[in-house]
């Protein structure tokens, strides 16, 4: 189901703001001032919140380092949950931490295409020539998420995150089928990025902030990192093995 606003909204919004570089009154632009963020934050129970968060599982990496805008982040959360929803088999993308996985990826090498060829000139290319947008991936996500929002507003007069699940699927399908015009990137390229990143977040090692509790692996019967299967490789029985993460 779609994310519904609830009582925790204020709390999570405050948490988001604290971690994302906003202060009351404006955006902090530089790393030097960043260190003063806590002190500057005009929020009476800030210290207490911070303490509670540190105690929660995953709290240190379940915080944004790329996204700065809660509304935009809400679109991402709702979209990834439709791609990989919670069901009887286990958690969906949100509970698995996928939005934070994507956030962290966008902040780094992946989001900035640092090991990819990004020199011009840029031309659209045929269907067989691959990624040709001049946008870096983090820019493609910005454009794509804004597109999901504006398309939802245009079609349903609501934010994407507030739509019914089936409506969200309709919107995502329109993007997947290249039916929505976006700036500098096709909606299908954005959708494919989003889908791939969602599955990566579900199944990557938990060190990347997704696959919380290795639940993505558990749903597939994948044991993660194991040193050796030498004594099991010829076994006729299916082996149920407790998963290990690389850094546990």
């Amino acid at each position, binding site marked *: 189901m779609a994310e519904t606003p609830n009582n925790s909204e204020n709390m999570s919004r405050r948490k988001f703001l604290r971690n994302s570089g906003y202060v009351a009154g404006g955006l902090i632009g530089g790393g030097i001032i960043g260190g003063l963020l806590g002190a500057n934050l005009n929020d009476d129970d800030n210290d207490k919140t911070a303490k509670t968060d540190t105690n929660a599982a995953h709290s240190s990496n379940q915080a944004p380092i790329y996204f700065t805008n809660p509304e935009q982040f809400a679109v991402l959360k709702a979209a990834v949950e439709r*791609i990989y929803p919670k069901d009887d*088999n286990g958690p969906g993308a949100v509970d698995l931490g996928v939005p934070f996985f994507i956030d962290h990826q966008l902040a780094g090498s992946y989001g900035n295409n640092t*090991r990819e060829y990004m020199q011009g000139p840029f031309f659209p290319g045929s*269907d067989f020539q691959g*990624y040709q947008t001049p946008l870096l991936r983090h820019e493609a996500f910005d454009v794509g998420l804004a597109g999901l929002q504006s398309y939802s507003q245009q079609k349903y007069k609501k934010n994407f995150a507030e739509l019914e699940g089936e409506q969200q699927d309709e919107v995502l399908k329109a993007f997947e089928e290249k039916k929505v015009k976006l700036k500098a990137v096709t909606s299908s390229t954005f959708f494919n990025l989003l889908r791939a990143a969602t599955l990566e977040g579900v199944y990557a090692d938990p060190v990347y902030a997704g696959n919380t509790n290795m639940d993505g692996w558990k749903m*597939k019967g994948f044991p993660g990192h194991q040193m050796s*299967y*030498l004594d099991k*490789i010829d076994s*006729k029985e299916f082996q149920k093995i407790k998963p290990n993460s690389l850094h546990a």
Partner: protein
Amino acid sequence: MAKTLPKTDVVVVGVGWGGGIIGAELGKQGLKVVGLERGKERGVKDYYVVHDELRYAIRYELMQDLSKETLTFRNVAKERALPMRQLGSFLLGEGLGGSGVHWNGHTFRFLPYDFEIKTETEKKYGKNKIRDLGLDIQDWGITYDELEPYYDTFEKVAGIGGEDNHFQGKRSNPYPNKPMKETPITGKFKKAAKDMGLHPFSMPSANMTEAYENPYGAKMAACQYCGYCERFGCEYGAKADPTVAVIPYARSTGNFELRTHSNVTEILHDGKKATGVRYVDVQTKEEFIQPAEIVVVTSYVMNNNRLLLQSKLGKPYDPKTGSGIIGKNYCYQILPGVTGFFDEQFNTFMGAGSLGMTVDDYNGDNFDHSDLNFIHGGSISLNQTGKRPIQTNYVPDGTPSWGKEFKEKSTHYFTRTLDLATEGASMPTRNNYMDLDPTYKDAFGNPLLRMTYDFTAQDRNLYSYTQKMMGNIMKEMGAKEVYARGVSEHYDIVPYQSTHNTGGVIMGAEPGTSAVNNYSQMWDAENVFVIGASSFPHNSGYNPTGTVGALAYRAAEGIIKYSKNGGMLA
């Protein structure tokens, strides 16, 4: 201004299997060899956290940094070629050991038919067959029997484990290591194939089936079947990789000097012979000239082609007239696949790069092509490499690719699907080739290599035939549902297919129709040797490394001879 360094006997461009073998063999003979590698040094000690699918298999930790250098691609010459901005269809290597670090270790010998493909095809099917299919095939200028001793050497160096194959060429020695273990998965394939009258055999493996010491004294550990092989380095040193099997010996000779972060941009020459190479230290950005008596280019395919074109060595191929040679006969691999859906659960996540069972009944000319509209074929294998969860999301046909049903099916079938794949041979045609791109440049301002490539009727026919054969095997294995991967309308640079790119600096019996002789020596510059799958006039239905290794050992022998007497070796 480039700094000129003291002259060396031999300079090697790229230190993977080819460069490592040359360093080891020439160093042993007392020749002074400088190995220039554009990437960083790496080895077993660097794979401490290698069981990380995202980092290594999805983000390509061990592969080429495309921000510095890539190639451009188009299907046909009338299109505008655009840069391959991200890795996809093939995964180019970079760094010490090259792609030999992140290979699976399948180590086949090509068939005797491959080396005399034109003669044999004409003899059996007449001259019209090749012409009607529009193929540019040619004999290799060497026979299987002539290359056999070098295959034997490479297999001993790489500790290959395997067993006899009904269709193989004559072997002078058995495999140096025993076959990989049989598992319920590979056993299922073996039984089905046998019941159908086919000839299954254990895939020849560079994953050590038992602890092994090679003739250079390199000790390799036994494979642990951990499931992290292709796209990964082996933290156990259980995969024959150049940094384990040959480079330590090369260095121990005292005659091999490795320089990493050294990107060669040009082969310097006087029109007749090479005088050395120009390279950039990619960390300091300093430029050097390394003079040498002999230049050995060992950068697999892409950079072998690019360096020759960039350096104006050899005559570039022109598809309009069919004249010229460098860039000609670019080939790839044709890769049909089928997936079988089962009710029973398998340990699909366990495996090793070369754990598999293969049949060659539909490879080469092992079956009659009289009534078929293609030649050659491919090896069909069930390869239990170890499934990983990001990349493996099989769902039955008609299932959406995301959402509730996708999640349910893709998690359910992760351990209930098996797949077969063909490594199909790729035949050269006039319009599939490589040259330099007129627009796009690398980080040093040099033109990128431009690839013009598309599938042909031969490819499509081979594809659908072998796919049908695989479907039959999968049904025999008891799959309740078989999904066959369709062939793309045109070759697509995005989805991963194979890193078995070949051609462009092809070998043959005489100049004019080839760039190098069967010692990998350039006809147009006798002190330049170009080693790699670039010398394959076509690509066979197997992985190329065994043949690259064999040709490297033959080249090493030739270079030693040349260093004493000079002149053309063939």
